[in-house]
């Protein structure tokens, strides 16, 4: 099926040429040739897929609604980093409201989804925490009698974890007993700092698990990128390029191998004919309509964006959304209910600085213990507490204090905190879902999603238990005060599950290789394919799965059905 690759100019582009091409790509002609593979979304999974496919010699076109971001745009080196981080660089698109965003109806969700739309996707603002899922995460039905098993095991994914860790440059320490043996991260861990060392010692006394957190943040120069300088502004964009984002780690290589990345291109729907995808309709920034033809379509628009596209791609054959014979497209949305437990210490820990990112993690209470009254558990990640504005405003854990004592409270908190972030496993629930909103649209008129999500009883009990245990950790470490914040609204960092994978077409949207059960040349490679959420930060797993999917696609290319 797939033609040989069309090398784009056949050579590495110097940066000036690259910049020129980026400009040109925002203004492409209306008529497009058929690509071997069309990818929708240039974020984490889109970048990984594009690089592999282009390096394998296939012609790749990617449509991305956002644009390229130059590192100089990020506000981390400017005094206004904290206030622009609450608006222009805020991770919720409804609040941010940039031209490349699409709005969400969030009236019926307990947790507001977070994302970024641009080349690099949500990685532009992510924290860079890069842990793998654990073996039990793939088999929760067998082990704990809840939810569903994945159609693959940790061991099957392990080589892809190792390869993607090498691609992005993960820093960490080999030998974590929370995982089976295998290759460790390619780079040494990032510095823990005084606060994390206090907590590591406390866990040592308690006999609890802790380990340096793996982060996709460089502790050493790596593949032409500079190491982390501990500036602590990772979630406003990394000015150094030390945090791995696919605009740095994958897109340049994909483009070098001929991939065409078209920015400012909003995909409205995937088009099908005779049961196969033929390409996608998209609109440019001025609202002009285009069609990109392709032999294979790969959705990488994240769990909300991919569900939105499928639900918008209705036809008479697919009145409830494309590839939706299971009725599960958009359903089983998981977002990891989150709590934070902040310990305040007497000494100045300079906790406005350091990777933001985590320093250490704990899986001590990760596995199910039924005596606790809930199933599954949470991963803990320890982070600094932020700059002065964050600590003076009552946005995170803690009460506001105005009047003369404001200064005392501020002094007590600023620079002296360490915060355990608790990511609870979110069990899938078909009622938690993405729908298409009746009236809301993006700036070019494409119907926008509505998010319907309620935090389940299991999650509430789970977080209560973990808050208690994390408080014990802080007190053992010497914290004189512990502040907690449970079920934060703006904590939908992890968007998962709306096109789950599985062996049975009646109960899953894509198969174990990310391919639609209904449309054999349509794939999903983003977090939508997750069967269960685990309690870990998901991007390392999204990356590993994306690589596994496209590798299989290339291996099987001669039997791939494509439109004539």
């Amino acid at each position, binding site marked *: 099926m797939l033609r040989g690759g069309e090398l784009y100019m056949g050579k590495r582009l110097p940066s000036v040429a690259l910049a020129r091409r980026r400009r040109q790509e925002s203004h492409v002609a209306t008529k497009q040739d058929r690509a071997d593979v069309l990818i929708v979304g240039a974020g984490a999974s889109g970048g990984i897929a594009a690089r592999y496919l282009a390096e394998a010699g296939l012609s790749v076109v990617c449509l991305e609604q956002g644009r390229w971001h130059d590192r100089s745009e990020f*506000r*981390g*080196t400017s005094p*206004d980093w*904290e*206030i*622009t981080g*609450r*608006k*222009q660089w805020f991770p919720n698109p409804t609040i941010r*409201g*940039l031209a490349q965003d699409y709005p969400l109806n969030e009236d019926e969700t307990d947790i507001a989804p977070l994302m970024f739309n641009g080349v690099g996707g949500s990685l532009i603002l992510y924290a860079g925490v890069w842990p793998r899922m*654990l*073996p*039990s995460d793939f*088999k929760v039905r*067998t*082990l704990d009698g809840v939810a569903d098993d994945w159609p693959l*095991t*940790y061991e099957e994914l392990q080589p892809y974890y190792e390869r993607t860790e090498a691609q992005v440059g993960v820093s960490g320490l080999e*030998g*974590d*007993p*929370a*995982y*089976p043996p295998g290759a460790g991260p390619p780079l*040494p861990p*990032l*510095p823990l700092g005084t606060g994390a*060392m206090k907590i590591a*010692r406390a866990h*040592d006394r308690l006999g609890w*698990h802790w*380990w340096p957190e793996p982060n996709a943040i460089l*502790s050493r120069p790596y593949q032409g990128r500079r*190491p*982390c*300088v501990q*500036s*602590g*502004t990772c979630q406003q964009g990394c000015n150094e390029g030390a945090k791995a984002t696919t605009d740095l780690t994958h897109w340049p290589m994909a483009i070098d191998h001929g991939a065409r990345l078209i920015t400012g291109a909003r995909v409205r729907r995937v088009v099908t004919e005779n049961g196969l995808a033929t390409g996608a309709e998209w609109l440019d920034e001025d609202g002009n309509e285009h069609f990109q033809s392709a032999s294979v379509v790969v959705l990488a628009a994240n769990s909300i964006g991919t569900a939105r596209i499928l639900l918008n791609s209705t036809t008479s054959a697919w009145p409830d959304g494309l590839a939706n014979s299971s009725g599960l497209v958009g359903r089983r949305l998981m977002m990891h209910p989150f709590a934070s437990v902040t310990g305040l210490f007497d000494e*100045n820990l300079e906790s*406005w*600085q350091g990777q933001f990112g985590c320093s250490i993690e704990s*899986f001590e209470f990760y*596995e199910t213990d039924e005596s606790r009254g809930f199933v599954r558990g949470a991963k803990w990640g320890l982070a600094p507490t932020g*700059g*002065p*504005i964050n600590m003076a*405003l009552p946005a995170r854990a803690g009460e506001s204090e*105005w*009047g*003369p*004592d*404001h*200064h*005392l409270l501020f*002094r007590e908190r*600023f*620079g002296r905190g360490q915060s355990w972030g608790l990511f609870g496993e979110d069990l899938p629930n078909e009622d938690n879902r993405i729908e298409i909103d009746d009236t809301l649209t993006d700036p070019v008129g494409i119907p926008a999603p509505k998010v319907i999500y309620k935090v389940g009883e299991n999650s509430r009990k789970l977080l209560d238990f973990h808050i208690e245990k994390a408080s014990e950790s802080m007190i053992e470490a010497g914290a004189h005060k512990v502040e907690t914040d449970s079920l934060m609204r703006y904590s939908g960092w992890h968007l998962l599950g709306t096109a789950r994978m599985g062996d049975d077409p009646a109960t899953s949207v894509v198969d174990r290789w990310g391919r639609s059960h209904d449309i054999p040349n349509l794939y999903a490679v983003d977090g939508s394919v997750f069967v269960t959420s685990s309690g870990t930060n998901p991007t390392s797993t999204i990356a590993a799965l994306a690589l596994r999917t496209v590798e299989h696609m290339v291996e099987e290319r001669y039997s791939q059905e494509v439109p004539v």
Partner: protein
Amino acid sequence: MSDAIGIRPSVGENTRRALETIGDHLIPEAHGMPSAGTMGVGTTQLDVVLASRPDLAPLLEGALADAKLDDIGDFVRRLEAEDPEAHGAVTLAIVAGYYMHPEVHELIGYPGQVPKDAQRLGEREIYQEGLMDLAAKVIERGPVYRPTPNPDETS
């Protein structure tokens, strides 16, 4: 940054004065720290904030242009209850103006988000004293994961 979201910031004199008054109420001079009003949260620091966050201007203007501030505490409480978005804008403008002031940085011992010299990431900083010994003890305590079940057990 104002171009980024395309709104020109402008607030009137009443709003500026009200911010100063409320600023002095929320963050007064005490414990060796200056008040928010004296740090310019209604004047120069407000301009600094609005240059980066022009979207705050209409919210501040709407809440404060005609504000009666006989009882400042009561005004702030009512604003919080009746218009949380405007209340958020007022407190953010005051807190941001105050804590972005270089003199306040000096007083609270905050150097800004300074990049640490790459040397900081030398072996000594990465493998801090005790780190490897502590990690060895975690390994000694044994695996904490449940292995993948045997395929026969899988449902």
